[in-house]
Every structure is written in C-alpha cells, then in structure tokens.
C-alpha cells in the first residue's frame, strides 16, 4: 500500500506531500525517540504524538517515508521545515494512536 492510499483511507492531513508512491508494508508506533532509533525499520511509517524536529531527523536517519502525528498534533515550525528539507511526508490524524494503529493494521496486515 502506498503512502497516498494510506492518506486517503485514514483521512489524514498532509503537511508535506512527498514520498506519496512509497510502498508501506509496516509501521512503528512510539513516542520515545531512543526506542525508534533502536528498533524501527527502514520503510516503516512512524506513528507518534511528538512534534519535535528530532522526529523528522530520526525518520530520515532510519529511511522512513512518512510520520503520522496523532490527535491533531501541530508540528513545531522547525519540524515542518526539517520534514521539507529531509523529504519526510508529514501527516496528521485526528485519531489517537490506538485508532490509527488499528486502522493501519487492518489496511496493511
């Protein structure tokens, strides 16, 4: 499933439309960036409520195409800028982490 399809099916707001054709087969949900650095895999979409620019830095480092911010979180200005600089697709869901994970799991399991 592509990032573009996920945006449509989960009704996500897209703040930086890049990597839309990237193929997504898995996701990682965590708010501890040390955990994501250690355990997330390349190609996964990252689900978090952190809105700090280190999120996009680690997404870039781990070669993750997109980040979904839950509960209508508003990214810090420098996070949005960093997403643009590093080509990370920045998405926002009105749902909380549990709902986003459940819906995404149903789509790509």
């Amino acid at each position: 499933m592509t990032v573009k399809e996920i945006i449509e099916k989960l009704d996500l707001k897209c703040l930086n439309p890049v990597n839309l054709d990237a193929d997504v087969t898995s996701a990682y949900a965590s708010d501890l960036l040390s955990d994501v650095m250690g355990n997330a895999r390349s190609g996964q979409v990252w689900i978090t409520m952190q809105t700090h620019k280190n999120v996009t830095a680690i997404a870039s480092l781990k070669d993750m195409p997109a980040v979904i911010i839950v509960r209508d979180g508003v990214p810090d200005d420098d996070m949005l800028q960093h997403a643009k600089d590093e080509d990370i697709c920045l998405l926002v869901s009105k749902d909380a982490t549990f709902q986003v994970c459940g819906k995404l799991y149903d789509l790509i399991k």
Partner: protein
Amino acid sequence: MKFKADMHIHSVLSPCGDIEMSPSAIVATAKARGMDIIGLTDHNSTLNADVTRRLGEKAGLHVLMGAEVTTREEVHCLAFMPTTEKLAEFQAFLDSKVVFFENDVDKFGFQLVVDEEENVLDQVPHLLINALDLPMLELQQKVYQMGGIFIPAHIDRPTFSLSSQLGFVPSGLKYHAMELSYYCKRDGYKFLETHPWFSDLNFIQSSDAHYVEDIAKIHSVLEMPFFSFDNFRDALRQGEPVIL
C-alpha cells in the same frame, strides 16, 4: 578555588520528595557532607527555593534557586535563576504552562511549601510531576533570556531524559552543561560508550536526591575564583567534563 556542588535536590514540594526533605534538613545535610553549593530543584516549581537559599546563607552554603522542569517532550531539565525577582518571574512563567491535573496526595504524596522552621505554608493543588505544555526549546530560550542556567537532567536515564525522549541533542539547543546521574557513575559510564554522540559534552553529576541519605552521594567539582551565579555559569561552560 574548587567548589563541590550537588545541583539536583528535591524538597517536600516534590510529591516524590521524602517528607524529611525540608529545606533546613537539606541545607544541614549538604553542609555536613562537605558541599559548597547545592541546587534546589523541585518538579515544575520553585516555591521552596528562596527559603532554602536564605537558610543556606546562614549556614555558609551557596544555594542556586531553580526547578526540574518537565517539558512537553517529557524531558527533565534543570533551570536556575540568578535572583529572587527572576525566580518569581520564572515561577509565573511555569504556572502559565501548567496542564491542570489534581494531585492525589495518597497516590503521589504531599507537595508542601514550607518556611525556615518547617511550618507548612501552602500545598500545591496540581500534580507537579506532569509535563508542562512547554517545548524544551522554548524553555531553554526563556532561561537564557532571563540570564539563567539551563542543564538537561540525567541524560543517561532510560526515562524522562534528553536521550530517551529525543534520541540526541537537537541542533540549535543551547545548554550550559548536561547532567549525568548517579547510576551513570555506578555503571562505569557505560552510557557514554554506548552513546558516543553524547560523550564530548560538558557534564555535571548530581544526586537527584529525594531522600536525606542520598544528598551529595555524588557531586561535581567546579573551579572559579569566588562563588557567584555568573562565575558558576562560566565554570559550567568552560569546564572540562567533570567526570571523576
């Protein structure tokens, strides 16, 4: 001159601080254990800091007035203010960022504002260990703008630390030093081997004492011509890593 400093101590104002941690007990114990300088750093509040400074003055112990602030990212950061006026301004700033959640005394403990004789003056109603609605960068900028001192706390810990919450030091973040915990020393500073991107920073080490017996169980040594807030800040900045 060399000064021994334990810059991270909680009083009875912190819900997790032991009931024995009155400002007078903290000052007496730190002095008895050979400290020259301490930091009073309750969670998200400075309300016992000035009384501790006054007690310190009488006892010949320098007390830096501050707080351990929990940012929106749930990173614990030490912040110190140079004067009681700035401290009051900083307290108002912290209060404006509170996400109100009532303290359940049975579950979390008392949050007591006390005087020099350990009389209870007030209890803080909201739970002080909750995160403030305050990004770490905004906190740092506020502290710098007010002429304070900013130190990310216990960066080696797996919870509530810069390393656990944000992975690495964000570009653009300023700081006067980073703090290592007692556990880092106990573990032979393995954290710095496994996290080499943190290893070349300026460090202090503090007890993070919540109980009287833990006061000054670890400390930093800082070199300055004489004690003043500005000299202390400079000593942090220019210091070699204070690992011993």
